């Protein structure tokens, strides 16, 4: 399949009073056209900052210090603000976690949806509203013509997230970045949204990056998974391999620590000791080493590189950043 996005050696840091927080430390990955990629990790692992760095949707304190981001050959890191605005919302759509705060409470739904089309596609307001209504229908909001005249507070959380999804898809982007879009929702509403996105994806053939902390959620949804820790990718593979043949001690620990609904035992859960790293110092060794039970001397001296897993087939695209070979130790 054709490559849509190519990210190489991306580094992003935040300026704070006492120095820098090294949020993203050399992330490289690619995304195919029509592919759905899940990005999983705990808070502070750099998953959101990495994806927001792609279109420089970052607070002023953030600096992208290295790396390249190519969207169908166009380098995004060197674009100026005006050029970036032609990418954001047009070629790359966004769905944020909290639909409560990402819609403007003072503006009608219709105006917020149509605004992007008028700006990017130079449509008239009437055309834009007509198309907005069609997209509201598509995301399962009934009585769409009437809804256009409503304000965000008149909709429930799940409905607002549907509006955000419609908004992200309106200008037919190549890529949609969904940043924990269901975390703020109840589990039955989450199930609705997941079904909707899966359905839309087959209809529209859009590439999707789905950021989450929930490995369970990704299991029925994405094509490939990237696991992040301490600002770096520690493991990536096609869907099945991450769950059936995890090779990074962090991925293994994470999978073992999730209680399963189908299991009825009440034995102790296995845990990962310690806590995630703070990133005030740029990691020069494996960021997971202090919590790792397979740690070698080398792990505390040298940062592991993300390399193809020994014995992996080429279509599993299985890469892991670990000096210890934990294949037989699980």
């Amino acid at each position: 399949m054709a490559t849509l996005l190519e990210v190489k050696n991306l580094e992003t840091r935040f300026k704070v009073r006492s120095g820098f927080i090294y949020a993203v430390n050399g992330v490289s990955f690619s995304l195919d056209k029509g592919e759905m990629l899940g990005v999983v990790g705990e808070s502070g692992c750099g998953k959101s900052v990495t994806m927001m760095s792609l279109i420089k949707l970052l607070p002023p304190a953030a600096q992208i210090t290295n790396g390249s981001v190519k969207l169908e050959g166009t380098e995004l890191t060197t674009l100026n603000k005006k050029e970036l605005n032609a990418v954001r919302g047009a070629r790359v759509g966004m769905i944020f976690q909290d639909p409560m705060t990402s819609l403007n409470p003072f503006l009608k739904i219709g105006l917020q949806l149509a605004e992007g089309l008028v700006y990017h596609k130079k449509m008239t307001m009437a055309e834009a509203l007509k198309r907005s209504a069609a997209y509201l229908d598509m995301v399962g909001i009934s009585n769409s013509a009437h809804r256009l005249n409503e304000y965000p507070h008149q909709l429930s959380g799940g409905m607002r997230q549907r509006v955000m999804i419609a908004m992200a898809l309106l200008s037919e982007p190549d890529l949609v970045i969904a940043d924990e879009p269901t975390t703020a929702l109840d589990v039955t509403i989450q199930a609705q949204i997941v079904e909707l996105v899966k359905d839309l994806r087959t209809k529209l053939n859009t590439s999707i990056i789905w950021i989450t902390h929930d490995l369970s959620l990704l299991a029925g949804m994405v094509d490939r998974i990237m696991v992040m820790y301490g600002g770096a990718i520690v493991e990536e593979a096609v869907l099945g391999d991450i769950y059936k043949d995890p090779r990074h001690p962090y991925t293994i620990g994470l999978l073992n620590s999730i209680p399963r609904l189908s299991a009825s035992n009440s034995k102790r859960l296995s845990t990962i000791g310690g806590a995630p790293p703070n990133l005030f110092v740029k990691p020069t060794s494996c960021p997971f080493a202090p919590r790792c039970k397979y740690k070698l001397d080398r792990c505390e001296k040298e940062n592991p590189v993300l390399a193809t897993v020994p014995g992996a087939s080429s279509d599993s695209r299985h890469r892991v950043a670990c000096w210890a070979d934990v294949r037989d130790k699980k």
Partner: protein
Amino acid sequence: MNTTTSTEQKVLMRIRNLVKHFPVKIGAYGEKAAVVHAVDDVSFDIFRGETLGLVGESGCGKSTTGFSLLQLYRPSSGSIEYEGTDLVRLKEKELRPIRKRIQIVFQDPYSTLNPRMTIGEAIAEPIKVHELLPTKEIPARVSKLLTDVGLDPNVGNRYPHEFSGGQRQRICIARALASEPEFVVCDEPISALDVSIQAQIVNLLMDIQEKYKLTYLFIAHDLAVVRHISDRVVVMYLGKIMEIATKDDLFGNPRHPYTKALLTAVPEPDPDRELQRKRIILSGDVSNAIDPPSGCRFHPRCRFAAPACSVSKVELQDLGNGHLVACNRLAEIGDQI
């Protein structure tokens, strides 16, 4: 817990017809008075030594129920019998001696620790308020509590901001234990924590329960965790109980259409299972608690709803073995669920 002897077990708390309504003002200028029916006529028992899971979606009244049991909210009506005393009838002063026996661990360990108190002071507070120990013996007791929750006993003079989320939740647990309670409400104690930390806290709560012989009301929306930690489970929807059962019955043989839908909505970390699984997608959203649906509160979203469901009153029916279900169409639905 041996499930077949549930009737012989000692009841620690008997909750009968608990109602909690919140008066609110609605309309653009707050000109209209209304009532939020947060908890509406809820009855259940909590047995000594068990973990009772309480699950449901946001706004179903699970936290309000927990707070009402502890009299943090005074119920609008109903009774909460604790060791023969109806807590609802007691005055604040009469409640004082009972409060040390019933404690709570809140969801957010960031906002429930005073940033200007050392954690030693925070943990010592309940001991001082209830005058449980002479002042001289308090530091040793605080160190013991810190050890019990897996922290270094010498960190008592540090402040909350020096600790991570998981460590803070450990501190909150130590504080809840300080007055030697027998009943602890755990109100979503792991929801605010990172995935790799959640398992640590779940294990700690289970260890502590064994060591201190505690009874838990474990409120959560994460059903997998509830299955792991609970003996019995109560499912709530919009202020009403839909189903009560032992965990094996509830997860293995759910009888209420809402429970069933809730269970199928939970994803599992197993792609083979996930890709094959048939999910029951509930349409619509949870209805409004200011103007709840008539009849069965779940009927607008229920795939088995009949016209009668919007009219007739629903009571919990006993299916045996402590399995109670609030559904008038149980017989018609049968195995189709």
